[in-house]
């Protein structure tokens, strides 16, 4: 009994240990990324997964501006989506977004900073606890994560910090909400500038109940632009938006649909 416990502890220790010598593509990865093994371990753990075109990732095949690479994730072809993780295999900070759609549609658009050519992936968790992974390669000249934000060229970047603009579009049975928040989204990798970024974005209904939640990481682009979709059938007249950064600054506003 004691021996078995020790053995289990030892195995757990191995699983938690440093990820040395695990590099190299795995045969099943359609993108043939040297980092897929590590990404899988870090983001999906031991959970079952499948590479699946039903999770569509749309982005330019070559990044025009390394600091603002737009992408669109659409997992509506899956029956039920609990969570969507967006990450870039070869960025110095891999995680970009962690989206809990809740009552929102499993659709999300944003922009990220790219450091070098990398796969961009979205993993959507279905109701059975299985991950569906889509993705594509984006080519880039790079450097997007280690360059200072453009805001630092301004005399006072705090003057408009957190200003949020919102537009609402009607779209095939859904309301599309596009919002942009003034924020430098500093990665902490540019010399002399500490990490300073929005960590959390919450959409609520008029009663303050959460509609959907988005955890955001350093690679999200400066003055982040997010697009969400809300089923018109919910019949909501108002949505609250609340963002919080890693310095504890809170930005919130309401939008009428």
């Amino acid at each position: 009994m004691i021996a078995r416990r020790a053995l289990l502890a030892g195995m757990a220790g191995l699983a938690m240990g440093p990820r040395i010598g695990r590099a190299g593509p795995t045969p099943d990865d359609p993108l043939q990324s040297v980092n897929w093994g590590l990404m899988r371990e870090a983001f999906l753990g031991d959970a079952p997964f499948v590479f699946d075109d039903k999770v569509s990732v749309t982005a330019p095949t070559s990044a025009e501006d390394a600091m603002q690479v737009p992408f669109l994730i659409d997992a509506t072809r899956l029956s039920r989506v609990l969570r969507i993780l967006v990450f870039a295999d070869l960025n110095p900070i891999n995680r970009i977004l962690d989206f809990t759609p809740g009552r929102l549609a499993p659709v999300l658009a944003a922009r990220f900073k790219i450091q070098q050519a990398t796969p961009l992936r979205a993993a959507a968790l279905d109701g059975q606890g299985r991950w569906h992974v889509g993705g594509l390669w984006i080519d880039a000249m790079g450097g997007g994560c280690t360059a200072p934000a453009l805001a630092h060229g301004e005399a006072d970047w705090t003057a408009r910090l957190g200003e949020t603009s919102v537009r609402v579009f009607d779209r095939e049975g859904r309301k599309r909400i596009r919002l942009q928040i003034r924020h430098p989204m500093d990665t902490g990798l540019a010399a002399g500038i500490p990490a300073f970024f929005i960590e959390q974005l919450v959409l609520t209904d008029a009663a303050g109940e959460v509609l959907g939640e988005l955890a955001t990481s350093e690679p999200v682009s400066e003055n982040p632009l997010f697009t969400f979709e809300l089923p018109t059938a919910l019949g909501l007249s108002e949505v609250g938006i609340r963002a919080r950064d890693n310095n504890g600054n809170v930005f919130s506003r309401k939008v009428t649909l």
Partner: protein
Amino acid sequence: MATTLRRSVAAVTLAMATTLGFAGLGLAKPVTDQDILNDAETTGDVLTYGLGTQGQRFSPLDLVNKETVKGLVPIWGFSFGGEKQRGQESQPLVVDGVMYVTGSYSRMWAIDVKTGKELWEYNHRLPDGIMPCCDVINRGAAVYGDKVYFGTLDAKVVALNRETGKVVWSKAIEDYKAGYSITNAPLVVNGMVITGIGGGEFGIVGKVYALDANTGEMKWIRPVIEGNVGTLDGKPSTMTGTKNASWQGDQWQTGGGGTWLGGTYDPKTGLLYYGTGNPSPWNSWLRPGDNLYSSSRLAIDPKTGEIKWSYQTTPHDGWDFDGVNELISFPLKGADGKTIDAAATADRNGFFFVLDRTTGKFISASPFVSRHDWAKGYDENGRPIYNTDFRPGDPAKGGGADGKGTSVFTAPSFLGGKNWMPMAYSQKTGLFYIPSNEWGMDIWNEPITYKKGAAYLGAGFTIKPLYQDHIGVLRAMDPATGKIKWEYKNHAPLWGGVLTTGGGLVFTGTPEGYLKAFDDETGEELWSFNTGSGVVASPITWDMDGEQYVAVVSGWGGAVPLWGGDVADFVKSFNQGGMLWVFKLPKKA
């Protein structure tokens, strides 16, 4: 000795229980109000700035003592890193085996005290437009519950989770663009985080703020300049003093009185003690009157923010005698053998004051520097007897070039007989150990008008040393007699805090880079260690697993290199730093 030993054993037991009971679960043991009030007695931790809310900076620990101190060696160091090597004036805290230390540019680290391993770093994103007068320093953190707090250079109080370093709440208490900044360590009393604010060079109004430690909600604000109205629970409370009693017109609206050093708290009287800074502008001819409550000590009720008493050390200040200096509670033995609940403060103006801390009644004022040109002394009511020749001349009367008034040479300089660096009181010797400086200044006045966010001085100045061979002097002051018992001269100006112990030692740092230990009765230097950069911070000591530890932050900077004038010759060769050092005695084999 027996008591100390018992305390050590208790501390060890507590440390073990903590390791087993809490560390495994990843939960920090919450710090309570009672823990904070007991801090001066509990040697196994340092929960407050000042090693106790009274600010005595005395530890009863005696394992490191006059005999053993020569064996003190560094056991680990910790670099603050980055390219941000500026002045480091921080006093670390030690809670449950974790050290919380702040650094330049509003940064904080949590470090495992056994190994020096970093647990987390919080790096506050500062705007480019911050306006700290006297370097981008920070003096330390406060702990309460599961949080650790500090003030930032953009005038925010930030509460971090002690385990993770994540922000729990952040509150901008003033507009940094008007010149406000926070460099003082906050103080926690009755579940409130209490802080002062800096910006006296920009015509701000100094205030004391009390925030709910759990939520960051403002409980009360007390402006320290008469005529301004405070708040309590978000509503206007009472006016400070009587409008225009000691100020003319609307000058009280930009009257200065920065509370930038923070304060102390005495559980016996239940009062907060705050020092207030110089009146604005420096040119005193523009603001006739005593200018209450600038350059004063205030006793404040922590429940309501009401001022209970005040004592002004420099009425109508004309020399930037920015009297924020800490007021330390201590028992004063009178000639009749009775003990008075007293408090003492060593002011920028060169005098050491003893007050009755219950009533604020003046007891004595004794010079602790060799020259105090501006005043002959104090009368029995505690009012200075001015030497009027040493006030810079009125620009309206001319005498200087380009509309300036006549210049005078006077000592102490505006950097003070003693500046921010806290003194220590020994419960063992009954003496105060004052880090002081011998310097004077040429100072002249000139016209000035207030503009938001611009320096509001109306004075020009240059500092000069008084002696060839030294500026800094560490002095042992007997509060009962006002006599100096011993002094230690240092070439460069002293700019670091003092610590004294039951082991009969007085620790302080020098800009030359040394942490030194002195005999508390003779001033003899018993030990020193070169930290590699100037020590302008306050050392601490605690015990753990039956051993006594000493820690200090090293990193040259602060006001001297920015404002020191001709003092540059004494300090120009010092290199920047940003390093925490921890010492103990070697373990016996």
